[in-house]
């Protein structure tokens, strides 16, 4: 009898073990299925021409499905050495156009020289620094590389690395 009971316990434990391992593997597989597809992940590089942007004008481009704002600062717009992208004489603000609060797209108000997020009233200055409302941090800067007067979005160029380093 005793051996019989032991044998049953063993079978029970073996079954539990196999099920547990299988279950964990299955959960892992399910998690992976929800991950972005490789084609999405490699949504690649986008080249944008910023030579035609006027002073004080903000233009938006699309990269990885996100809006990218490029603002060319006019002479009277406050500068911010930590965030400005300088190409020759021209000074740009280059940011991902998604509010760092909950991801709405702010719009640039040329008069107030700030990006205004209508969703919950967040305000960012012309350099993309949050100045009012719920956004917890400045607008993010996308990885970029400068080549002449075009930007390659998605590639981490020298300029980008410098900006990121300055932040730290």
């Amino acid at each position, binding site marked *: 009898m005793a051996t019989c009971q032991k044998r049953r316990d063993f079978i029970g434990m073996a079954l539990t073990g196999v099920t547990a391992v299988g279950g964990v593997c299955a959960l892992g597989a399910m*998690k992976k299925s*929800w*991950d*972005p*597809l490789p084609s*999405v992940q490699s*949504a690649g590089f986008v080249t944008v021409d910023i030579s035609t942007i006027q002073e004080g004008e903000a233009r*938006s481009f*699309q990269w*990885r*499905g*996100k*809006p990218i704002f490029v603002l060319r600062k006019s002479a009277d717009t406050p500068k911010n050495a930590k965030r400005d992208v300088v190409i020759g004489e021209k000074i740009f603000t280059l940011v991902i156009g998604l509010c760092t*609060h*909950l*991801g*709405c*797209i*702010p*719009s640039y108000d040329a008069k107030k020289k700030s990006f205004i997020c*209508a*969703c*919950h*009233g967040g305000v960012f200055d012309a350099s993309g620094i949050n100045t009012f*409302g*719920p*956004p*917890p941090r400045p607008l993010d800067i996308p990885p970029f590389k400068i080549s002449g007067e075009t930007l390659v979005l998605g590639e981490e160029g020298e300029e980008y690395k410098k900006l990121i380093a300055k932040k730290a």
Partner: protein
Amino acid sequence: MAEIRKSEGFIDWLDQRLAVKAFMRVMMTEYWIPKNINFLWAMGVVLVILFGVLLVTGLLLLMYYKPDINLAFDSVNYTIMQEVEYGWLWRHMHGVAASATFLIIYIHLFTGIYYGSYKKGREMIWITGMVLFIAFSAEAFSGYMLPWGQMSYWAAQVITNLFSGIPVIGDDVVIWIRGDYVVADATLTRFFMLHVVLLPLVIIVVIAVHFYSLRFPHVNNQDSVEFDFDAESKKFLDGDKKESKVVPFWPVFLSKDFFVVGFFMTIFFALVCYHFDFAMDPINFEPANSMKTPAHIYPEWYFLWNYEVLRGFFFDIGGMAAMDIGLIAFVIANIVFMILPFLDRNPMNTAPAHKRPIFKYWFWLLVCDMIVLTVYGKLPPTGMNAWVGFVAAVIFLGLFIALPFITKHEAKGDEQ
């Protein structure tokens, strides 16, 4: 196995195999409901009917809906609305029923709070009810996204972004949920799956548990008198129907419920046919545009109070970022009702609110505060509005913090 004899008819044939008669007795004819309850107790049955409407109309819509970001908008706004015969009817019924479901859920919920139906052995009914509320919220949100209009898109963007508030892994979780860096096709198809299969299954199971949990402590009643269900039901079965304090669920109680349902459905169809737009946002008739946010984003009316709690905290307090405070408040607002039975520290008092000395003020204050939150949730969050929202959000949290103390105090008064 029981002996199977030659049956005396179809019912008898079924009874021998499935015990249908015993089943009917337990579920219907000998399931006892107190007599002293009012029309507010019919909301459960109204909800069952509404869920049925949602299910049937949903199936009909499913035949033509296309879960693809390039096709979704037109499949709803052109194919279903213009081409499919009576497609408009199913869509409006589905939309209005979704809104109405929340209206009735709120009535159901506040009835429960008012009459103290969440405590004294009825905790499980309350908790499963709140689980249902959350499941319905997820169901409504995932469904709202499917037509792929501007408001759907941005609602999805904002709501999925809420998860970025989770410490450390937040941003990755958001991408994981969306299946893309922004809300995109992968997001639409997985929400489609949730809306038409997984969540309805969960809801059906939880409804079953909700009903099951009702059987043991029985339905509460208007005066919350406690009586012996066995003795009262025996009176009824013995023919002493007048004296007995209970009636069977079927046919007596349901006949009254059907009246309420009939009344309700009249209003429902008036809405469907003449005012279906109350459940639809005009902005959602613009196709989704991932490069442009509408000027002012707000959720459907039934989430407004919640949304206002989220954005009510618009300035940093003591070194804590406004966003984090808002998120924490939002999470609390979503679970605080769930633990209501344990916050109410007056163990004896299941009396209706108007008979409780302090609780009644608490109750009406809560109702008013939630109405204020709802109204201001829809208004732009600027100037004065932001402050009203802030104060209302603080009051909301304050009420739940105060509840244990209030009820404890009340319990002392009862003892004397």
